[in-house]
C-alpha cells in the first residue's frame, strides 16, 4: 500500500505553511514582549 499523492502533498505544503507561520509568530511574540517590557 502506497501513501497517496494527496497525503504527500498535504504533508509537504502543510509543513512549509506551518514553518512560515512559525517565522511570523516569533516576531509577533517578540513585539508583544517588547511592548509589555517582558522580554527578559
Amino acid at each position, binding site marked *: *500500500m*502506497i*501513501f497517496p*499523492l494527496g*497525503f*504527500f*502533498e498535504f*504533508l*509537504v*505544503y*502543510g*509543513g*512549509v*505553511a*506551518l*514553518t*512560515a*507561520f*512559525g*517565522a511570523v*509568530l*516569533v*516576531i509577533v*511574540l*517578540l513585539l*508583544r*514582549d517588547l511592548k509589555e517590557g*517582558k*522580554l*527578559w
Partner: protein
Amino acid sequence: MINETILPETTGWLLLALFSVAWILLGRYWGKKASGLDGYMLAGRSVGLALGTATAVATWVTSNTTMLAPQFALEFGIWGMLAYSTASFGLFLFAPMAQRIRQLMPRGYTSGEFVRLRYGRAAYLLFLAISLFYALTWMISMAMAGGTLLEALSGIRYEFGMTVVLGVCVMYTLFGGLYAVIGTDFIQSFIILVGVVVVAVATLTQVDLSQVHAHTQATRPALMHVLFPAAIMAVFNNLLFGLGEIFHSNVWWSRAFAMREGIGKKAYMLGGLLWLPIPVAAGFIALAAPLLDVNIVRPDMVGPVVAGKLLGFAGAIVVFVVVFSSIASSIDSLLAATADLITKDVIQQFIMPKANDAKLEKISSWVIAGLGVVTWLVCLPRIGTLATVLFFAGALVASTIWPIAMGLYSKKTNPTGAALGMLLGSLGGLCAYFLVAWYVAALVGTVISMTCVLVSTWIAPHSFDWADLNPEISSDTESEEANLAPQPAGGAE
C-alpha cells in the same frame, strides 16, 4: 567529500566572517546583562515567552534537523520525514514538566541536582555519566557537521571550518553566558525558519510533487510504502530518542529554570509546534534528488546539495546561513548547559564544595573554554558519520525517560529502581544497537528502564518529601521558624 562546491571559497569565508563577528558582538552586548551566577548561568531567571519559544526551536533545530532529516527522507521515504518530526513530541511532553521543575525547584540550576536530591548518589553518578557523554557526543556531532558543511558547500577545509564555528560559539557563550545564548538563539531561530521556507518554496516552484511521488514510487517504492518495517521502527526509535534527549538534558532543564514563572509550559508547547513541520519542510527536497540527477556521495549532505543545485548561488547562501545558524544555536546551548552541569554537579559537589557564586561563575567560564578545546581535539580526526555518532547515545538517554518523568511526578518512585533502570536500560540498548540495528537502541533502552522503574516502585514504594528538592530554602525556612519561635524566658540570668 563532495566533488564540486556550490559556493566559491571566498564567499564562504566572507559569510563565515560576517556571521561570526555578528554573533560575537551580540554575545558581548547581551552578556552585559549577566551579573552574578544566576545572570550568567540562567539569564536572571526571567526569560519571556518570545525568547523562550525561540530558544526552544533554535536549540532543537540542529544541523541534524537540516542535514539528517533529508537523509531520513532519502532512506525511509515519507515515514522518514514523519519519524524525524516526532522529535518535537519531546518538546510537547517536556512543557508541563518545565512548569513542574520551576515549581519544585525555584532556585535549582541543573538536572543533575534534581537526580542527586531525588534519587541519591548511585543514580546521580550514573546520570552524570550518561548526561555528560550525551552532551559531548551531541556537541562533537555539531562541530563535525559545521566543518563538513562548510567544506561541502564552499570548499573551506574541514579543519578550518570546524575550528571557526566552534571557536565563535565558545567566544560568545564565554562573554555572555545564557543571556548571549538565548539572545542569539532568537535571531538564529528566525533565520532558520525563514531560510527553510525560502528553500522549500523555491524547490516547490521548480519541482512538481506529483512527479516526485510518481518517480519515487517507480524507482524506490519502499520509500512511499505505508508498511515499511524499518521506517516504522525508526519512527518509534526517534520519538523515544527525542524524549530521552529532552527529558534528561540540562540544555532543557536550564531553560526551564531560566524562564519566568508561568512561561516554561507555553514556550515549550509553542516551540514544539514550530519545530514539528521543519523536518518535513527541510526533508522533502531529498526525495527530489533522484529526479535531478544529483550525485549523492554522502547521504547526510543530500539536503544542502539538492538545494544548491536547484537554487544556485542564492540557494547555497541560504543553506549555508541556515545550517550555520542551526549549528551555532545548538553548540552554544550545549556549551552553556554542559558547563553548568560540570560546574555545579562535578566541581562543586566533588572538588570545591565551599566555592561561592563568584568563584563558580569564574569556574564556569573556564569550563566553557575547556569544553571547546576538548570538542575541537575530538573533532579534528573526523571519525564516523553524523548518524552513527549521535545514535550511539540513543540507548543511554532513552533509559533516563522513566526515571526522570516518574521522579518528577510520583513520590513513590524507588531510587534503586531508577538507578537500575538507567544502568540496565543503557546496557540493553547498547546491546540492541550493536546486535540488531541503531533504530531499535532507544526502544530497547526505554522498555528495560521502564520495567525496572515500575516493578521496583510497585514492590518497594518510596516516600519522598518534595521539600527535599530545596535544601537551601528548607534550611532558610527552618532558621526563620526558629527565630520566630517563642524564646525561652532567660531574664533570671
